[in-house]
């Protein structure tokens, strides 16, 4: 098992701050998707604050690792991480979903000439991100670059056919610099994934398609970091990290409850959520 040198306590503190930012942004916006943003917090923190090579002060650096948020509705967690690493001012977070904001309700990199740093491309229609990530991985290889490409998918999203078209191709192309993370929170829009359209046996599906599979507890930051290291060590094929998570993680009344897929907290709920996040033992 690769040893990961990281200040775990510091990263845990960051996840706490990001969760609070998610709640603040959504409360202020009055709409949006808390559940899948909170479940992905450790994954996004592990990537942006530890694993990924990137330069917030040089956002279009050609050798940066790429991150595609295929489950675009969870952009609050991405925006919070981007603001915190310095891609744009933290105050901008409160413009989420407002007219004229760069922080669209689903990720948009901006018009040519006015790009929003840190957001690689547009997502929001589920199922499309992995194909784009493959394109970027192929481009990196063509250009003899060493960047890695990460794509974060939802488990409900994995019902989309295009995901499996992409999944079939990446191993065939030997894209070992591509890493998918599935936020396996087991809930989609209407209901639990299992009640809607089961993905099981999920691990076996990816393996059958030729992927190296790692399963982790997606809320254990050390496990997330280790998995990301291991993924980089795998040669000849891409890796998928299936991160077992809890939708709404960190806010008891949102946890594991499909009602909080796409509903913003009101002021009172937002305040309660923040108090809970602050009170949690790290």
């Amino acid at each position, binding site marked *: 098992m690769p040893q990961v040198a990281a200040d775990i306590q510091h990263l845990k503190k960051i996840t706490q701050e990001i969760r609070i930012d998610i709640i603040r942004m959504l409360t202020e916006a009055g709409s949006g998707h808390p559940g899948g943003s909170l479940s992905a917090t450790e994954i996004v923190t592990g990537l942006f604050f530890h694993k990924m090579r990137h330069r917030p002060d040089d956002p279009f650096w050609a050798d940066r690792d790429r991150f595609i948020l295929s489950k675009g509705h969870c952009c609050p967690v991405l925006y919070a991480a981007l603001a915190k690493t310095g891609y744009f001012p933290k105050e901008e977070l409160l413009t989420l979903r*407002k007219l004229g904001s760069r922080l669209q309700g689903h990720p948009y990199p901006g018009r040519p000439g006015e790009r929003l740093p840190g957001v690689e491309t547009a997502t929001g229609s589920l199922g499309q991100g992995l194909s784009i990530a493959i394109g970027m991985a192929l481009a990196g290889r063509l250009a003899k670059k060493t960047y890695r490409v990460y794509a974060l998918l939802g488990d409900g999203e994995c019902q989309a056919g295009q995901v499996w078209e992409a999944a079939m191709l990446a191993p065939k192309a030997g894209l070992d610099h591509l890493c998918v993370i599935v936020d396996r929170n087991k809930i989609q829009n209407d209901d639990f994934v299992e009640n809607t*359209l089961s993905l099981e046996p999920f691990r076996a599906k990816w393996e059958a398609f030729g992927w190296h599979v790692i399963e982790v507890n997606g809320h254990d930051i050390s496990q997330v970091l280790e998995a990301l290291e291991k993924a980089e060590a795998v040669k000849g094929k891409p890796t998928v990290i299936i991160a077992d998570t809890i939708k709404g993680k960190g806010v008891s009344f949102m946890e594991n409850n499909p009602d909080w897929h796409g509903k913003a907290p009101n002021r009172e709920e937002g305040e309660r959520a923040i108090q809970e996040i602050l009170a949690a033992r790290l």
Partner: protein
Amino acid sequence: MGGKATRVAFGEALLKVAAKNQRIVVINADLGKSTNTVKFVEKYPDRSFNVGVAEANMIGIGTGLALEGWIPFLCTFATFVTGRFETIRVSLAYVDANVKIVGTHAGIAIGEDGYSQMGLEDIALMRSLPNMTVIQPGDAIEAAGAVEHIAEHHGPVYLRLTRQKVEDVNPPDYQFEFGKGVILDAGKGEGRDLTIMATGGTVYNAREGARQLRSQGLDARAVNVHTIKPIDRELILDSIQRSGRILTVEDHGLSGGLGSAVSEVVAERGEGLVRRIAVRDFGESGDPVELYKKFGLSKENIVAEAKKLVKKD
């Protein structure tokens, strides 16, 4: 805002027609809460299918059911289902499958979710297909009438619905008449200066705009075009005969929607002017009322554009 979202009226009407017609089935794609099919699913679990986040599969499955004599209603966001255009084109429309595609969350009026969730090219896409009928009700009572109609109508239909509440524009005894535009405030304006033709979520603003124009001395009439394909040629030509001018208003992209449908009829006729109010760009996140202002779908802009059109000859 009063009124009711046409997607809500749809959910209620669906229960009524389903009670009468046992061949109606519903296919969801993980958006049943948003399209208001939840009650149908509770009441008719055997006639409900949830395919997950898989709209192309939904279209194929719906076609297969229709080919075997069922009447499937495919219910999801307008953009996600019509975005799988080529599947609709070959599997469904080409074989004249008796499928009802119900696309909710039409237009920029969905607001904060932003462009990726907005149906803005859906009318254009569906209108381009032979066999396909395209209907967009302007209020709740019309939505109910449209649902009753399409349940009986044989052939593929695209029904476009709003996320947002829309004010009533029709009287309580309103009867939906397929293919016929509805003259609003009938008898109050002859349309000797212009006719405003609107559809869906913009009909109310168009009616209010026409009222304001009349109060300012212009003879404007507003028409609600709920059936976009086949378009009401007769009413378009009648409008041109009265004033030579039509202003179209729709919460849809500029190309291929109501404005295009009207323009085609007028251009073929060879006389008359058309001015189009529509969404002239990708949409974006924001408050729906602010978005209507920014993209020119407000009553104020309808009035302003109408005045420009009237001066233009």
